[in-house]
C-alpha cells in the first residue's frame, strides 16, 4: 500500500517538506531535482500517511487504491524510479 504521484506534478516539493519518512525523490536538495520530469514516491518506504496528498498544491498525489485507470501506470513509474535510484 502506497501513495502515488501522478503526471499533474509540478515539482513544487511541498510534499517533500511534509513527508515523515523522506520517501519522495528527488528532493529539491538532491542533484537530480532540476532535471526531473516529476517527483516519485518510493512504495517500499511510504507509510500512506496522506500528508503529501494534503500538501500538494495541484492534487497530484493519490492513494494507489483510488487511481483511475488512465493513471494506474504511475504506480509502476513511481516504483520503477525508486528502484533505479536505490540501485545507483
Amino acid at each position, binding site marked *: 500500500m502506497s501513495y502515488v504521484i501522478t*503526471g499533474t506534478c509540478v*515539482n513544487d*516539493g511541498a510534499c517533500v517538506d511534509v513527508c515523515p519518512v523522506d520517501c519522495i525523490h528527488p528532493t529539491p536538495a538532491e542533484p537530480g531535482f532540476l532535471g526531473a520530469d*516529476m517527483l516519485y514516491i518510493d512504495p517500499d518506504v511510504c507509510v500512506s500517511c496522506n500528508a503529501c496528498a494534503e500538501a500538494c*498544491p495541484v492534487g497530484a498525489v493519490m492513494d494507489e487504491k483510488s487511481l483511475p485507470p488512465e493513471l494506474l501506470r504511475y504506480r509502476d513509474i513511481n516504483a520503477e*524510479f525508486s528502484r533505479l535510484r536505490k540501485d545507483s
Partner: protein
Amino acid sequence: MSAPLRVAIVGSGPAGFYAANDLLKRDPASRVELFDRLPTPGGLVRSGVSPDHAARREVIATYERLAMASHRFRFHGNIEIGRQLTHEDLLRCHHAVIYACGSAGDRRLGIPGEDLPGSHAATSFVSWYNGHPDFAAQSFDLSCERAIVIGNGNVALDVARMLLLGHDRLHPTDVADHALRAFAESRIREVVVLGRRGAAQCAFTTPELLELGHHDLDVRVEHAASAGAKPAGRDARAYAVQLKLRLLDEYAARAALPDARRLVLRFLNSPLAIVGRDRVETLRVVRNRLVSGGRGDLVAESTGEISEITAGLVLRAVGYRGLPVVGLPFDAARGIVPNVGGRIVGENRRPMRGAYVAGWLKRGPSGVIGTNKGCSQETVACLLQDFAGDRLPIPDIDDQGTQRLLTERCPDRVDYLGWKKIDRHERLGGMDQQRLRVKLVDLQRMTAVASGRF
C-alpha cells in the same frame, strides 16, 4: 529597532507567488505587495497552462490563500510598472522590489516565410485560447486539414493536443469562448510535431507524452530511433529519457486508428522555409542526423535530404524570450536581467540597491512551475541578507501614503477582493453552461466586474 521590511513584487505568476510566500514565512514582520499588469493573478498559470490541465492552475489559488492568510499581503492588479508607477516610485514605498515578470516574448525561427499569414508563435496561440486580454482579438485560421508545430517541448505538445481534442473534450474546460467556437469549426485532422534532434533529446516531459495515449488519437512516431540514444545515468533526467523512449516505442507499435485525428511526432527534421503565395501552403524541411557536439552532447546536422509538408497552419514552439523591463539592465543575448543569485547587477557587476529578480526573468525560460520555488527562495535569501545588513534603501513614503499614491495613479486597480469578484463571475458563468469557467477577456469588462458594476 528598524521598521518592518516592505517589499514590492512585480508579476504574479509562480515566481512572484513563491517569492511572496517565502518572504512572508521567513520574515514574520514583513509586508508584501504583489503587482500585476493584468487584473487577474497567475501569469502563465492562467494564460499558459493548458485548459485541459485544470488541476495545475490550482497552484496559484493555493499560494494565494496562503499569502492572504498572513494578513501582511496585498494584491494590486491592472497596474503596469514602468507606466502608472516607476521603479523609483516603488522604492519610495518599499525597501526592495523583486521583478518576477517572466519572459513575455517568443523566439523566432529565422527562416524565410515566417511572417506569412498562417505562421504564428505558439505562445500567441496559447495566450489566445487561454483568453489573455492582449491576444483575445487575434484569429487563427483552422480551416486547413494539417497543422505543423515546430519544437519539442511541452508547449509543442500542448498546442498539438489542443488542436486535436475537439469541441466535446474542450467544452467543459476554461478555454476562452472565442477559441472554443474556433475549435468547434476547426477542420484540422492532423498535427505534425517537428523536432530537429532525436527522441532522446526531446524536451517534453513523460507525463505529457503518456497522456497522448488517452485521447483516442492516432499517434505516429517517425525517425525516433537514433544510435547511442540510451542514456547511461540513473538520475531522474536519465530515467525520464528512458521512459520517453519506451513510450515512443509503444506508440510506434500500436495499430493505426484510421478514423481518429492524427498526431505525428517526427524527429530529426529542421524547418528550412515556410512557403506559400499569400499564406502558408507548405513547410520545407531537411532531414538531420545526430553528430557529436564536442562536449558530450549530440547536435543535429543536415543530411541535405529535403522534403515538403503541406499545411495551412505553422506554429513555432521554440521557446519564450525575456523582454527588457523599463529602468533595469538587460542581457539581450540571454533575454534576462543580469543578476547574481537574484541581485540585479549593472554593467560593473555591482548590485543595484533594492532591486531583485526571480523566475524566468532571472534564469531564462526553462523548467516547470515548481522550478521557480527554489529560484525565488534564492532571491529572497539575498534580499533578507541585505535587509539584515542595512544595505537596502529606506522608503520615505509610509503605508498610508503608498495607498494614497496607488489611488491617485491607478484608479482602475483591481485588489484581491476585486479579483475574487472576477473569479466568482467567471465560475458562475461557467456553471450555467457546464463549463469550469467562462473567462473574461476584455479589460474594461474585467475592471467593471471587479468594482461591482456589471
